[in-house]
């Protein structure tokens, strides 16, 4: 399909969108079930089974050790939190700036946020030694009269992520109400019941649209600073320690940029898959890839810059602690991962200077996956290299992930996929009403719809 890349030239009617989107929900082929079964089975086998083994045996099932008490679980946690910064944050920013190209993709981007957060929150449970007492990190009145320690960066995390999950859920739900109403009218049986309840009796009156618009805008205003705070706080889990190469002021912006970077790359991946699998070629176009590509490129440059600054300050400090940590990062046990990260996240994205690259679907998919591999590596290295080279050389050590950890890491992708597969069958994965908004409104003369938006 080669369409010129402007929104105005959608040659589709409202009906077509309706049909396409609702078909994607209601009509379910065997391919979907195979995919769901595969993802679900993999989740069970690679995520829950090793996790339950770990619950039974102890964190020792993972590879963590004495200096390296944190490992891939936390790296995955940051990764998923980072991935979550794609959707809602991007969606909010684009909503407030009225970017119309956002509209075809934001629903799935927000879903990505939500499910990334769910996976990240699950990782908290996987990470801690005694998840059965995790509720102690939640403030609630109890007979012990004990409360969490709100001075801990980890508590900031608990509060921020709880808020973020709540906010993202509400945001994606609010945006979907009109679409639920649309689906409601086309379905029957249990689906009708479900969508009736989900749409809350939405009718699309002028008043409802008005209220929705304002509520949505306020939410967007609230969520942008929230999202920035969430990843800053995640960075503070590290930066508030005094571990050489973790104790850095630049960490908060570094993490936020990294999060948006990997999140945007994640969107590209998801867009590609949705486009292919759900038949959304008309809605997700080269325009989207082009715009996302530009964004990715900018983020890549900022990320590279911050990385360079980090290296420079460590080198310039001249202290043995910082210097050894730097040396270890660049040339130590994990150095091949470091250089892999640099190639994937700083060098390869330079290809996006080319418009042709940005508008090619498959190369963009490959690059987006490479960027996320690189970004995962980045999170892993932040933890592994820093903890391996701390203040007392005689306590230095190396951490190597165990099969259980790697399995859980892979399984978390399956978990995410499973959740996403369920999502596409419940939520209209393209926002119908917003896509309709971008299209030419029907004109007085039914037979001759003209180009241009309504006055």
């Amino acid at each position, binding site marked *: 399909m080669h369409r010129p890349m402007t929104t105005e030239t959608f040659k589709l009617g409202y009906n077509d969108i309706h049909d396409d989107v609702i078909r994607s929900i209601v009509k379910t082929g065997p391919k979907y079930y195979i995919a769901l079964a595969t993802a679900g089975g993999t989740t069970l086998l690679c995520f829950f089974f090793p996790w339950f083994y770990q619950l039974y045996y102890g964190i020792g099932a993972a590879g963590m050790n004495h200096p390296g008490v944190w490992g891939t679980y936390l790296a995955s946690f940051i990764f998923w939190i980072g991935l979550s910064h794609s959707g809602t944050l991007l969606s909010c920013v684009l909503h407030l700036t009225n970017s119309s190209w956002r509209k075809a993709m934001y629903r799935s981007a927000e879903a990505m946020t939500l499910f990334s957060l769910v996976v990240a929150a699950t990782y908290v449970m996987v990470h801690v030694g005694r998840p059965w007492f995790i509720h102690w990190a939640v403030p609630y009145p*109890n*007979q*012990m*009269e004990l409360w969490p320690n709100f001075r801990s960066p980890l508590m900031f995390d608990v509060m921020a992520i709880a808020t973020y999950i709540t906010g993202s859920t509400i945001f994606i739900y609010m945006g979907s109400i009109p679409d639920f109403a649309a689906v409601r009218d086309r379905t029957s049986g249990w689906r*009708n*019941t*479900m969508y*009736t*309840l989900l749409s*809350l*009796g939405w*009718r699309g009156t002028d008043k409802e649209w008005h209220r929705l618009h304002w509520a949505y805008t306020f939410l967007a205003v609230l969520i942008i600073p929230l999202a920035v705070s969430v990843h800053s706080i995640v960075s503070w889990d590290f930066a508030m320690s005094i571990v050489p190469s973790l104790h850095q002021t630049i960490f908060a912006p570094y993490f936020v940029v990294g999060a948006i970077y990997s999140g945007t790359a994640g969107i590209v991946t998801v867009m590609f898959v949705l486009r292919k699998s759900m038949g959304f070629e008309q809605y997700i176009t080269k325009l989207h890839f082009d715009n996302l590509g530009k964004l990715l490129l900018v983020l890549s440059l900022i990320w590279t810059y911050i990385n360079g600054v980090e290296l420079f300050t460590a080198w310039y400090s001249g202290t043995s602690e910082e210097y050894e940590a730097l040396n270890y990062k660049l040339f130590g046990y994990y150095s091949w991962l470091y250089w892999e990260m640099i190639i994937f996240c700083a060098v390869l994205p330079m290809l996006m200077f080319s418009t042709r690259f940005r508008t090619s679907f498959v190369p963009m998919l490959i690059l987006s996956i490479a960027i996320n591999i690189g970004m995962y590596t980045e999170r892993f290295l932040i933890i592994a290299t820093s903890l391996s080279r701390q203040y007392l050389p005689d306590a230095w050590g190396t951490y190597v992930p165990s099969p259980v950890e790697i399995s859980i890491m892979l399984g978390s992708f399956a978990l995410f996929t499973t959740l996403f597969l369920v999502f596409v069958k419940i939520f209209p994965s393209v926002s119908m009403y917003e896509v309709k908004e971008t299209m030419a409104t029907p004109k007085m003369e039914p037979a001759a719809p003209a180009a241009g938006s309504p006055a």
Partner: protein
Amino acid sequence: MNISIVPALKVLRPAAMLVIVVLVGLVLGYWANATFVPGYSPEQPIAFSHKIHAGDNEIPCLYCHTQARRSPSAGVPAVSKCVGCHLEVATEKPQIRLLMSYWENREPIPWIKVHDLPDFVHFTHKRHVLANIECQTCHGPVETMDRITVSSRAVNGSAQVGKPWKMGLCLNCHRENEVVNGTDCWTCHK
């Protein structure tokens, strides 16, 4: 055409009611067990009655639980201590005969622990006894019990039979009496 969510709610009603009934049932069952099943009050190998000994005969607690004054653990009297009296007293009662059979076989009596604190708690009887805290403050009206039932001290200071000790209850007493370092975790947790 009219629309509202009521029909959908109606469709869901049976399911919703089932969920509600199950949840209420679970809570009710849990609560009923906690409230009406008398607290942990197991049948002991010998039906030793604190009511007869401490209540009717007014034997002081520390006569048998001699350790309480000088050791973290109050201690259970050795079988020889029981026999010391019961060679003379009430020798014909069946429970005393049971006691004597333990004694003659030189076997200890496997008493079942009723007041049991977790292993991570350091509780010392000695300090509490020396602070002149009545045994009943923590163990309830033992002198009225034929069979020992777990009990604790409620927040209002009264004995609550059937409810085991909880950290909050210890803490409450420590706060009320302004115990030195009484709210330091390491005072009680080891």
